[in-house]
C-alpha cells in the first residue's frame, strides 16, 4: 500500500537518513572516481526513498541501503560500455596470490598494515576485482555477517567466505610493493 508523502518523508529521514555517511563511504571506496561515487550515493538514497514503502521498519536499514547501492552500481557498470574491462563480476578470473607473496609483510604485519594511511588502503582496495572489493567492504569495513553479505550479493555464504579470504590476501599483495618502496619490509 502506498504511503502518504508525509509518512514517506518521515520514515526516510528517521530510518534511512542516519546511514548516509555509511552509504557515501562505501561508494567512495567502491568507485575510483569521487564524482561517480557521490552520484552513486545520491542515487542510492533517492532509490531508497522511492522504495521506502517496501522497507519494513525494525529490519536492518543499513543492509537494505547497501543492497540498493550494490544494485545501482551494477546497473551503472552494465550501462557504461567502457567500464566493462574494469568489471569482473566473475571474481574467479584472477589468480590467487602465492602464500609467500601474501605473507611477506614481515614479522609484524599488523604494524605494517597500520602504518598505511586510509587513503593508501583504499587505493589498494580499488585495485581489486569489483566483487572482491565489494565483499571486503561489506564484511570487513561495514561489519556485516557473512549471511547478510551473501544476501546483498546474491551468492552463497561459502562464496562470501572464500572471497573474503582471497580478498584479504590480494589486498596484502597490492600493498606489498609500496611497503617495499618505503622499506618497511625487505
Amino acid at each position, binding site marked *: 500500500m502506498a504511503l502518504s508523502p*508525509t509518512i514517506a*518523508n*518521515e520514515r*526516510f*529521514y528517521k530510518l534511512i537518513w542516519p546511514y*548516509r*555517511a*555509511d552509504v*557515501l*563511504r562505501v561508494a*567512495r*571506496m567502491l568507485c575510483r572516481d569521487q564524482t561517480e561515487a*557521490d552520484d552513486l*550515493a*545520491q542515487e542510492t*538514497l*533517492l532509490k531508497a*526513498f522511492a522504495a521506502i514503502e517496501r522497507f519494513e521498519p525494525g529490519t536492518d536499514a543499513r543492509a537494505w541501503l547497501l543492497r540498493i547501492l550494490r544494485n545501482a552500481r551494477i546497473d551503472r557498470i552494465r550501462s557504461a560500455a567502457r567500464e566493462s574491462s574494469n568489471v569482473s563480476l566473475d571474481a574467479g578470473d584472477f589468480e590467487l596470490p602465492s602464500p609467500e607473496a*601474501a*605473507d611477506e*609483510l614481515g614479522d609484524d*604485519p*599488523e*604494524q605494517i*598494515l*597500520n*602504518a*598505511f*594511511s*586510509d*587513503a*593508501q*588502503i*583504499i587505493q589498494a*582496495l580499488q585495485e581489486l576485482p569489483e566483487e572482491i572489493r565489494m565483499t*571486503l567492504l561489506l*564484511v*570487513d*569495513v*561495514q*561489519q*556485516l*555477517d*557473512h549471511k547478510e553479505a551473501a544476501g546483498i550479493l546474491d551468492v552463497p555464504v561459502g562464496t562470501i*567466505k572464500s572471497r573474503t*579470504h582471497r580478498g*584479504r590476501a590480494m*589486498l*596484502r599483495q597490492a600493498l606489498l610493493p609500496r611497503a617495499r618502496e618505503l622499506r618497511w619490509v625487505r
Partner: protein
Amino acid sequence: MNSDNPQSPLDEATARRLARLRAMPIDTSRLERMIESQIARPASSPARHWRLRTWRAVAASLFVFILAGVVMWSLSGGSVQASPDVMARFHDDLVSGKVAAIQVNNIADANTALATELRKIGEIPDVPTEHAMLCCMRTIDNKRVACVLLRSEGNVPVTMAVAQASDLRMAHGEKQVVGGVTYHIQRSGNLNMVMCERSGRWICLIGALSTDKLISIAGAMEL
C-alpha cells in the same frame, strides 16, 4: 571485527585494518544538500498528535533544564579537564596506529580533511617548522579535539591537540610564560606536554622532547 569464522592471525590483522575504514571521517554536507533539495524534510505533525507531542516536549524540556542545572552546578563553565594521561594516550594511539587517522602532508591538508569537524573549533594552526603526517578527531567527555601528528627534528613524533578554549580546561601544575604566552606544563611517563590558550583555541603539544623544545614549537605556530 566480524567473527563469523576462524581466521589466521594475518587474516585477522587485515580485517582489523579494514574495519578502521568505517570510522574514516567523511564530509556528507554536499550529499545532504543534494538530497534535501529533492526530498523535503517532514512537515510538523498533524493536529491530532499535538497534545501528546506537546506534553512529551514539555517533559523533555523540564528534564533537560533540570539536568543542565545539575551539570552547571557541578562543573565550572561546562568545560572538561584534559588530563595528562588522556593526552598521552591520544599521542600513543596516533604514533602506534591504534586510532583511525588520515595521512596528510601538511597542516592545510589536515584542515581540509577535518573541515566539517573543525567548524566549531577553528582551524588547526600551521607549524612551519614541523612536518605533519597524520590527523584525526578524538573526544574528551563529548568535547571534540583535533589531533595532528607532527614529525619534529630527529624524527621525534609530536602530537598537537586543538580544541575550543571553552571546552577544555588547563590541568593544574607548573607554568612558564614565554613570549607573553602562559604554558601549562604536564608530564605522563616519558612524555612532556605543554598546554596554552591562543586565539580562542586550547592547544596541547605532547612528545618525548624537552618542555623547552615543545614550547619552542608552540611559539612557531601561526594563528
